[in-house]
């Protein structure tokens, strides 16, 4: 018997605080595998957001920095510009990136900062227990949309990947999902490509939008949650490569 799948080195072997069925654990693993496969642990700096993944540095064994809500792309700019040979990635949720951090991601992409952004879209504010996010779907019930999101007062769900794809400084944008094992494998390929571009010195920003289940935030079971990603989220956020 030989081992065909085991935990990769850069993913620390410890329990996580994430809810059962949360997509963060899967996404963290894919990033860790990418870092190990590319052999870049020694020169990678990761940026943890404010959100459920604020403690990402407890799970990913690379130099990491925890920053203010939404500011990761600006911090990444400061790090990458002064350390161009290091591999810089930010890991952000939908509140962090698309709400309070909207200006920062827009301008980092606009300037073409040579960084990799992993954008975890779970259509809700998870850590603060379930408020509306910019990516919340129409009709979706959250603690701040108890009657469901309405376009008139709340706007439509924000399609970050489409928005950023317009910018010349954004060189690779792809949206993928974690709703089943096949999609997880595809997401791994996308994340790996986004890192490879930075390793190769590509001149521009890569962003991977990952549709992710949030069973606790959506008040669903994990299996219901992945079904909701597959059936509902992919309608509002179509999967596929938007740029690059």
């Amino acid at each position, binding site marked *: *018997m030989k081992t065909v799948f085991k*935990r990769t080195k850069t993913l620390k072997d410890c*329990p996580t605080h994430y809810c*059962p*069925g949360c*997509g963060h*654990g899967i996404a963290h693993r894919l990033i860790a595998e990418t870092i190990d496969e590319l052999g870049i642990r020694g020169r990678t700096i990761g940026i943890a957001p404010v959100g459920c993944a604020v403690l990402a540095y407890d799970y990913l064994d690379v130099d990491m920095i925890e920053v203010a809500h939404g500011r990761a792309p600006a911090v990444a700019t400061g790090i990458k510009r002064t350390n161009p040979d290091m591999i810089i990635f930010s890991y952000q949720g939908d509140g962090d990136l698309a709400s309070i951090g909207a200006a920062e991601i827009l301008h980092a992409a606009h300037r073409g900062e040579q960084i990799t952004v992993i954008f975890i879209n779970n259509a809700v504010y998870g850590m603060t227990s379930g408020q509306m996010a910019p990516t919340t779907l129409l009709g979706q019930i959250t603690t701040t949309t108890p009657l469901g999101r309405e376009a008139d007062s709340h706007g439509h769900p924000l399609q970050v990947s489409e928005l950023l794809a317009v910018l010349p400084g954004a060189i690779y944008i792809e949206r993928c999902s974690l709703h089943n*094992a096949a999609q997880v494998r595809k997401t791994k390929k996308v994340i790996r490509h986004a890192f490879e571009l930075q390793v190769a010195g590509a001149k521009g920003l890569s962003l991977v939008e990952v549709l992710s289940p949030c069973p606790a935030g959506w008040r669903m079971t*994990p*299996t219901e949650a992945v079904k909701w990603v597959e059936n509902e989220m992919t309608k509002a956020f179509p999967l596929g490569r938007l740029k690059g």
Partner: protein
Amino acid sequence: MAGKIIIDTERCKGCGLCVVSCPQNSIVISEKSNKNGYFPAQPVPSVVEGTNNTDCTGCAMCAVICPEAIIEVQCDDNIGTPLPNKKLKNGNILAIEPEKKSKADLLSLKGGTG
């Protein structure tokens, strides 16, 4: 079968994603909780007499979807090479001659109690 999974049941949070991901329906939720109060996933007991294997093919879909990364997957070294004379619980025998390469020879089922 060719594969085997090892689940760290004390780290499992019982999300059940591996259960629905397994193409062989070889994972179930345990009826006994772990120390954290979760009901962890565990491999389905073997359908092949006299072995510790399940129907697991070592595809690793469970490990790929596991949010806690606590499933290790192992596979027979000679995967792809047919295995000789496995006796199944239902009485059938998976009789395979390793030397023969033709598809017709790969599998012959004999009924009855063997």
